[in-house]
């Protein structure tokens, strides 16, 4: 499995809120706490589309 480019992780933000993302390596997801969305990473490609993101419960 292709790992995501670390340089890319430094510059990506949530497309909705423009706030920083938390990288969940295990789940291969980029978590936007502000938007409560998890953006999947597939084959080393972050999918930064709101339509494709998983809604996460407000904890």
């Amino acid at each position, binding site marked *: 499995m292709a790992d995501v480019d670390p340089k890319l992780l430094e510059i*990506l933000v949530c*497309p909705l809120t423009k706030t920083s993302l938390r990288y969940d390596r295990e789940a291969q997801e980029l978590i936007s706490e502000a938007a409560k969305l998890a953006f999947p990473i597939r084959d080393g490609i972050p999918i930064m*589309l709101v339509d494709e993101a998983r809604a996460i419960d407000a904890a």
Partner: protein
Amino acid sequence: MVNTPLFDRKILVTKRTRALPRLGEHDFLLRHAGDVLSDRLDDIKRDFPTVLQIGARDHDDFTSTIKDRAHAQHITRMDIAPAYLRAGDTHGDEEFLPFAHQSLDMVVSNLSLHSVNDLPGALIQMRRALRPDGLFLASMFGGETLYELREAMAHGEAAISGGISPRVMPFADKPQMGDLLSRAGYALPVVDSDIVTVTYDNIFKLMHDLRAMGESSIIAQRVKHFTTRRFFAAVQDYYAAHFSDPDGRIRASFEIIYLIGWAPHSSQQKPLKPGSAQTRLADALGTQEESL
């Protein structure tokens, strides 16, 4: 958000994806505009360490040339159609740009921004993602693109159904683009264009080429009912009568607009405040100053 967007971006993804396998035989406009952008970058003697390429349909030669001439350490490509992407790229949407404030030194985009619904919004998001003195360098189709087909289709449809509907995508006009860049906060904007004229046997060859480029219309309100053979015959007749060469081939125009803008920085030249002049204009011109 706009209630009814002009362009259907889901259809755009479908059309771009369908075009991928044979794009290499139909990418002459991408290559032409890409070469112009590469030349423009060659004139700018600066290093741009971190580069975002918006739109990933280009041949790899484009990306590597841009990377070389920008002296980039890192280039990431972003596209809305995942079929064009590989590891290291980003699947994203220009209308919801996922790049951090002041994280990029350059944004380059070749023939991609003409299919964006909210162009001012996309330009502002790109400018914010640029570091101060960062470069925006882009090409997009302009308003003169396919004016022959637009006119022929309007006449063909009016002749047969008595009405017209939008069948050819609208494109931004060059004079508006300079204003748009300024309003989006870019400093020192430069806008110019060229026209590429292509000849075809008939409108069917032209429309085939547009589909193969992934550039057929994505208007959300496009005509979805069956289009009759009579309509296409009328369009072909009008087109051939008005826009053909002596040898009978029809001409199609593609206007490509080239855009350069900079994220503002204190080192850039700016107009002085009114009334702050140190020398009189009349002295510089060697004339006598007269009151109006």
